[in-house]
Structures are given as C-alpha cells and as structure tokens.
C-alpha cells in the first residue's frame, strides 16, 4: 500500500512516515502544495494524507484539483482548525475524513485503514448481509444472529456492530465510533463508549466462542477472529 503525505511541518511528516512504515506501508512525502499536487496527479497512491494549510497551493485546493482530475483516491485531511464549518469545508472539497492536529498516531492509523478499507469494498452500501465468522447481520431486516441464535440489539448497538463489522480486522477508535454512530465530534467526559462496547460484547461474545470483539489498549476496538 502506497501512501502520500503532503505536510510542510517536518516533525509531523516524519512522525507519520515512521509510524506508517512500521505498520508496513510505503510512504512518499511532499513538503509543498505544488510538489504534493504533482505527485498526487502523476503517481498512483492508495491514500493521501494532506495538511490543510500548506505554503503555495493549500490543502483544500489540492483535494479539489485531484477530484476534478477524476482521481478517487481516499484523502485524509489534517488540520489545526476544528470548527464544524472547517470540517464541513474539508469534506465538501472532496476529503474523505478529517483529523484535527495534534492527534495520536493510533487515531491516524485507524482512520487510514478505514479509508483503505472503504476503497476496497466500495460496494458496501449495496450489501444486505454482513458476516464475521458465525456472526451474521441482516441489514434489511435489521437482525443479528450468531451461530444461528438471534441476538436482540438496541438501535445504537446495532449501528455500533454494523460499523465494526464493516471494518472487520481493523482498529476502530472511540472517536470514530462516536462520529459514525452519533455524529458527534467531541469527546464525552467519561468513556461512555466503553460501556456500550462491554454490553455489546456481552451480547455477541458471552455465550459464544471464539471471542470476536477485542479491546486494543490505548487505541480502541477491533472485531475479528483472532489468529492464534
């Protein structure tokens, strides 16, 4: 997987580069908007990480230009601006996700993985059935079962599980869950998400084997059949 980072802050850029390389990605870096735009339009990448404020051509212009050139690579916008309008502007320009600086690397990694995943399963929206091991989710009938046994989920639990199942095998952070299920871009004072997750785990994992929902320390959650 090839990822391009367009970021003028060398510290931030090299920190992302190091992290992503450790995670097994191939990383290119550009320090100005012009170089970045050149690379993004001439080379082929699986994802772009673009800082919003760049010398020369700014981040949003780059996104608009590559979208206008019919390049549908997933774009994660980094920004120090955190107003609702800033976020909306970023997504309107053609960005796929928006991450406010400074951020924890796990958050960036989880979001990049989610974007890459979205790319490979672009037809997700047409899916009517999600399956992870013996856990099945019928999106049309809003039903969940595991090993043939029906599991009764409340609406938000259903949405949480749907998001996890759509991102199976990936780390999903609490912030991502809050954004996806509640549409909130703020952190609650206490980790109420954890309570929801433990209730969800009790419903889908307690009476079944193997456990599917895993807590990733310092990051979030992951739904998968753990390889032993």
């Amino acid at each position, binding site marked *: 997987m090839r990822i391009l980072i367009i970021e003028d802050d060398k510290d931030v850029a090299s920190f992302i580069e190091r992290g992503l390389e450790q995670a097994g990605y191939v990383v290119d870096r550009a320090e100005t908007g012009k170089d970045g735009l050149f690379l993004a339009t001439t080379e082929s990448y699986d994802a772009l990480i673009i800082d919003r404020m760049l010398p020369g051509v700014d981040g949003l212009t780059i996104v608009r230009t590559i979208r206008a050139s019919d390049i549908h690579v997933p774009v994660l916008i980094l920004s120090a601006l955190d107003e609702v309008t800033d976020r909306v502007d970023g997504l309107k320009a053609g960005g796929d996700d928006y991450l406010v600086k*400074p951020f*924890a690397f796990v958050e960036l990694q989880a979001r990049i993985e989610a974007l890459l995943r979205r790319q490979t399963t672009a037809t997700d929206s047409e899916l009517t059935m999600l399956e992870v091991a013996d856990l099945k989710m019928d999106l049309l009938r809003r039903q969940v079962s595991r090993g043939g046994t029906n599991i009764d989920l409340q609406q938000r639990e259903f949405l949480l599980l749907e998001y996890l199942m759509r991102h199976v095998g990936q780390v999903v952070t609490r912030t991502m869950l809050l954004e996806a299920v509640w549409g*909130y*871009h703020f952190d*609650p*004072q206490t980790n*109420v998400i954890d309570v*929801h997750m433990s*209730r969800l785990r009790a419903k889908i994992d307690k009476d079944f084997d193997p456990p599917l929902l895993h807590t990733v320390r*310092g990051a979030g959650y992951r739904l998968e059949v753990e390889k032993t």
Partner: protein
Amino acid sequence: MIWKSVNSRLIFRTSAFQLAVIYAALFLVSVLVLFGTLYWATIGSVSRQIDATIESEILGLAEQYERRGLNGLVDVLTERVSRSDDGGSIYLFADSGLRPISGNLRRWPSATPAADGQIEFETSLGAGQSTRYRANILSVGPNYRLLVGRDIRELVQLTVVFQRAAIWGVVAVLILALAGGVFMSFSAQRKLAGINRTARRIIDGDLSERVPITGTHDEYDELATNINEMLTQIEALLGNVRHVGDSIAHDLKTPLTRLRNRLESLAGGGTAMSPELEKCVAEADRLLATFNALLRIARIESGAFRTAFSTVNLSDVVEGACDLYHAAAEEKGISLNFKSKSVATMYGDRELLAQAIANLLDNAVKYTPRGGNIEIAVNDEPDHLELVVTDTGRGVPEADHDRIQQRFIRLDAARSEPGNGLGLSLVKAVTDQHRGRLVMQNLQPGLKVSMELPRGGIDSVVPAEPTTN
C-alpha cells in the same frame, strides 16, 4: 419606554429628586422672604403712616384741651368733624359712661382695645356702608374719653389683595419647583438608566456592551465616554488573560501529543503494553482531554460556532445524548428517562447542545447513587425552550451553584469521581452562546439543572432574573 422602566417607587429615593425637594424648599423660603419684605415696605408703611396721623391728631387735640379746656376741645372737634365730611377721620368725645358728647361717631365702639390702646372696628357714619376704622383712645381729664380714628378701608383692601397674591404666588412656586424636581429627577434617571442597563448586561457576561452616548457633550456623556474606555480596557485585559490561558493549552497540546506517541512507540507497536506504560498513556490522555476541553470552551466562548447555527430539534439532540448515556446509567442501576418527545425546534448548534446535554448527563450519572433516577425533559415555555435534567443525587450546596460553573472548580465531595472540573463550564459556555440561562436548584434529594434556551438563538435573550440564593 424609558419612563416606564423607571420604577416610580424608586424616584423618591433618587438623589436627583431629593435635591429637587431641597431646592423647592429653599425657593419657598426665599419667596416668603421676598413677600415679607414687600409687605413691610408697602402695607406696613401705609399702616405706619395711618398710625402716625392718628397719633399726631391725638397729640394736637390733647394740646388743645390743655390750653383751652373742655369747651375748646369740643370746638376744635366740631370744626374737624365738619372738615372731614368725607368720613376719612372719625372723632368721638364721650363722658365716663362712654355716652357721646361730640363727634361724628354715633356711639362708642364695643371693640376691646389692644395692648397698645389701638382698636379696630367697623361702623357706618351715615346711611352708607360700613367701613373699617382704626382708632386710638385718649383719656381727657378724669371723666372724659376722646377717640380719634382713620378710615383703613384701603389698607384692608390692599392687605387682602396682597395676601391673595402671596398665597397664589407661593402655591405656584411650590408646584413649579416640585414639577421641576420631578422632571429633573426623571431626566437624570433616564440618563443614568442607560449606564445602569449597560452595567447590568456586563455583569450578565456581555463584555462587548457599551454605554450609549447622547451627543449632548454634558457631564453624563463624559461619564459614559470614560466608562466605555474603561470597559474597552477591561475587555482587552480579560481577552489577554484568556488568550494566554488558551495559548498555553494549545502550545502544550502538541508536545503532549508527541509524548503520547513516543510512549506508544516505546511499546514497540505490539498490542501488549506493560502496565506501567499503559498508565502513562492513560495519564497523557487525561491531560490531553483536559486541554481539549479547555480549548473547546475557549472556542465556544469566542463565538466561533455561532456562524454555524441552524435550526435544530432539541428533542432529537436530547434523545441522541440519552442514547449515549443510557447504557452507563443502566450499568449503575440508575433509570434514565426522557419525558417529552415532541418537536422542539430552536436556532442553535446541534453538536454544542449535544455536548452540553452529554456533560449534564455525565454529571448526573456520576453523582447519582445506585438505584437512583435521572429525568430529562424538554419543556415548551412561551418565550423559550427549557431543558431540565433532574437527578436524585446528593445535590450541590446552593452557595456553590455559581462557583461550579467556573473552570476547574470541583467540590470536595466530587473529588473521588473522575473529571476535570470543566464539564459545567462548557455547559455554561454553550448556554451563553445560545443567549440562554443556566439555573440550578436543589431538590433534597437531588439536583435540578435547567438550560433555558431562547428559540431564536442569537437575537432573543432569556431575561435575566435576580438570582435568589
């Protein structure tokens, strides 16, 4: 409009009115002195002249008696009576039984003489109407009395006219002085009302408010200008202090995030972290959360979100937040109920309102003991929406209701619970941005927190009421 706003009961307590009353009293005294002087100089002078005429006539007649005896006196009297046929002077010579002997008065007047021997009485000389006279009495020898008097009709008329003029004058002066006083106090009050209103708004938290300047360049304008300059100064200083605080939070956030990332990379990218390292990451996360909350409040207070206001259904927002906390409440055996499900639209920011409600619920869940109740309601009041969160926790001492809305204020009783003391500050900031009012009330047991939110958002304001502590 302004006149109505001035409480009439308070008018009498204003210094302007008190000053007006004092001026009215002073005015009255000087008018009285003026009238007194006029009286003394006009009527007093006429009266004294009459007295002098009577006196000199009596002295003349006494001299005649001494020189020419009783008959001489009667002759002179007869001559004088005939000379005064206009009735301007009266004379009566009588014996010891006050029986008339000579003169133009038919009988001795029944009036009792005053201490100085003068008497005033009314009588008629001929068939004409009665006239008022003033007279002096002289004892002539042991057996006779002589009365000499003058017509004081004109003096009496003059006095009546003067008195009438004086009474009307004093009444007019009193009315004018009081009316002037009331007018003065009203106009002073009106000018001060602008200053007071501004001060009130500033106390309520709107530092951008300024005192209106009337443009008359009077001392009130000067005061208003000075107050406005002072306010600008204070606002700038406050802004500086806040800015410094926010810059610190902002500047520390980046290195702190870097620290967190280093800690994580120490773990070597694997999922297994040593417990010590895990605690360090958690600690860094807690610090970051505090900085984030602080910056979030600063951004809310800066009004940055107001541009993104739109029409939101408060009931929907509450429902979302309830969904978020309902699991946490249930885990603690607390029942969380949202009563009204009606549509309650207002102009505001969905995200901010959700965060404020989430914080209120967070507190309620935290401080309500196991088995308790949390009730949430959205009430459709005539001029605003009211969001009420009621819990059955231990409540908050009333003296602390204002204090806990400030940043980093945590009551001793809350120290055992996790938190950074910023939750309610955010609720307050969100309420303020929506021009609303945050009201707390102890229920024994429990706490009731109400957010009173005007539907119009920016333009309408929930009127401030004096806080009853």
